[in-house]
């Protein structure tokens, strides 16, 4: 029954396919290696700090109470920005950050899902009620940047954005309580 040339031909087809599959495997392995390498050596990771917070009470007391929002320079010199994303604005509406220094951004939502990015930077996170979203970054260009809400949060979504003022050292002067605001510029 078996036809000799047909069988050889079938085996040749299988051979080319296996060769291609091997190439595909190498390609994927190479891509993943690059991603893993940069993740490990340059700490390039998505924002994944699983930290719970009650959205119903977060603005009443604690970290996201009104007097804690905005930019704070800690005693150790660490810069932390806290903001609330709420229908349909960010509080505060302008965020002051230093140029070329590590910054930790922390966001929470009391109502629905929001998201944000800062144009021209790698800052990008979702803000899901129930969790604190945290991003570590460093701003490398001194200018005024846009920080829009990028997740649909209701009919007023398009009007929801903040600005980010990247300040040089001579502008970024914390007050006695360690706080910096855009108005100081």
């Amino acid at each position, binding site marked *: 029954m078996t036809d000799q040339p047909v069988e050889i031909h079938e085996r040749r087809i299988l051979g080319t396919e296996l060769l291609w599959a091997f190439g595909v495997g190498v390609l994927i392995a190479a891509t993943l290696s690059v991603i893993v390498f940069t993740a490990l050596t340059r700490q390039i990771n998505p924002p994944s700090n699983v930290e719970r917070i009650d959205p119903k009470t977060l603005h009443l007391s604690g970290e996201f109470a009104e007097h804690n929002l905005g930019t704070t320079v800690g005693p150790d010199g660490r810069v932390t920005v806290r903001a609330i994303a709420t229908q349909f604005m960010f509080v505060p509406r302008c965020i002051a950050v230093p140029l070329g220094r590590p910054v930790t951004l922390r966001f929470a939502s009391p109502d*629905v899902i929001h998201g944000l990015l800062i144009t021209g930077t790698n800052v990008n996170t979702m803000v899901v009620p129930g969790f604190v979203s945290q991003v570590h970054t460093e701003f490398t260009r001194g200018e005024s940047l846009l920080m829009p809400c990028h997740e649909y949060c209701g009919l007023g979504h398009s009007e929801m954005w903040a600005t980010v003022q990247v300040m040089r050292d001579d502008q970024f002067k914390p007050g006695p309580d360690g706080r910096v605001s855009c108005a100081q510029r």
Partner: protein
Amino acid sequence: MRNVERLCLAHFWVAFAAFLVACILGTWQMWVRSPWGAHVGTPGQYFMSVTAHGVAMAYVLTTFFIMGFGYFVAVTALQRPLPGKIWAWGAFWMAIIGVVMVLITVLTGQASVLFTFYPPLTASPWFYIGLVLVVAGSWVWCVLMIVAMREWKRDNPGKPVPLAMFATVANAVMWLWTTVGVAVELVFQVIPASLGLVQTIDAGLARTLFSWTLHAIVYFWLIPAYIAFYTIIPRAAGGRLYSDTMGRVTFILFLVYSLPVGMHHLMMDPQHGNGWKFIQMLLTAFVSVPTLLTIFTITASLEIAGRLRGGRGVFGWIAKLPWDRPAVLATGLGFVMLGFGGFGGLINMGYGMNAMVHNTSWVTAHFHLIFGGSVVIMYFAIAYEIWPRLTGREHASLGPLRLQLWLWFIGMMVMTVPWHWLGLQGQWRRVANFNYADPIIAGWGPWVLVSLVGGFVLLASALLFVRNLAILHRSPLPVAPRPLYALAVHPPHRVPAALNGFGLWNVLVLVLMLLAYGYPIAQFVIEPSPAAMVHRVH
């Protein structure tokens, strides 16, 4: 048989009517967002339009098209009557009732939650119940596909299931698996919330359950295009399928790998740890395998056709392909769009690079290119191939068909290339209008206008497509009988049981889902996240 043709045509016409409406809405949305459309429309109208566009394209076009195509394949590939025709019609009408419910709630502004709905923002309960009816209709279709294959196997013991049907059932099995996530979210979280039975909702859990469905649903839409690549295109090009086995492997890989990857849509979310995102990123990389295998096999199949037509040399066969045939042209154009879109997808998959593009126009560009481009152009090709069989009439001229495909390709490229660029500039998604007075946004204006031109070209193509199909119903030319499905170079006589059914693969899917989603979902039970107040838009 007449009844099955009516069944298929009913599904297809619902699908394409929704498609045309969605194209009109999409073009209007682009105009509103452009510098020319400032102050046109209110945000309320815009988000109503976005919701309608998304629901029509993603749920109505796809589900009805896939169901209609599945019935067609079951009858023509297996060459036996469709089991449970009454059930099929029942599912059709149930889905129609669902669509009407969705339509009414969207048009009355009670469901402006976009189509990838995320609580705590919730629409009218009728919106969700309508969607559940559409999905339930598709479940009936899944069962009918599985039954049809089982009956055929019972009567043809040991024979390989025809590839077109094998792939259709792979899609049905995958769809049953993947809709579990969104069904659980809707039934246990969203519908009780929208009905007012509960006042709070776990937003992180809802997003996680939706992500379960979120990526595999795209493969549900995509598989018909791949069925065409493997089983229709080689014949349309005048050649043979290079390898039947590769086709089976591809569809099995789609089933296995498209499910445990949905969390890559949540890479920028705060409710999952780094490790789980990392695992799903790795698994996402494997989803490219079936596509890369397909590119090889289909290119090889087309090469056979080109050489049979006298093509010589390494690339000479490409010019010899019958590009005047719509199915071949659509495949060529679809591959180009798949290439660009796939490249963008690899960027999205990249664990760190995703931060640059998440929720920007880049993502919109990516899925319009992959789904709207390469998948929908194959829907066109399938419709052009099988419409004559459904109506018994022949296309009078292929010119308008080719023009329509070219317009779709050009429109899609002109629209999405600027979107990619704007995404890299940080243009965010899902807003009703842009303030072009802002210095950062002002520079985007020209790019937005170029993409708007692409939108108009797409709209012209959509109108031409519906016209091409409509006039075929009145064409005086009777159809000449010819086979539709491609033969393999070596048609299989026997295949291993693993390549002829899905039992083994279902077990593997279960294991991978437990690995990828076990803890990420269990964490919401172990340590419930604080619930959010439900926000109703109705």
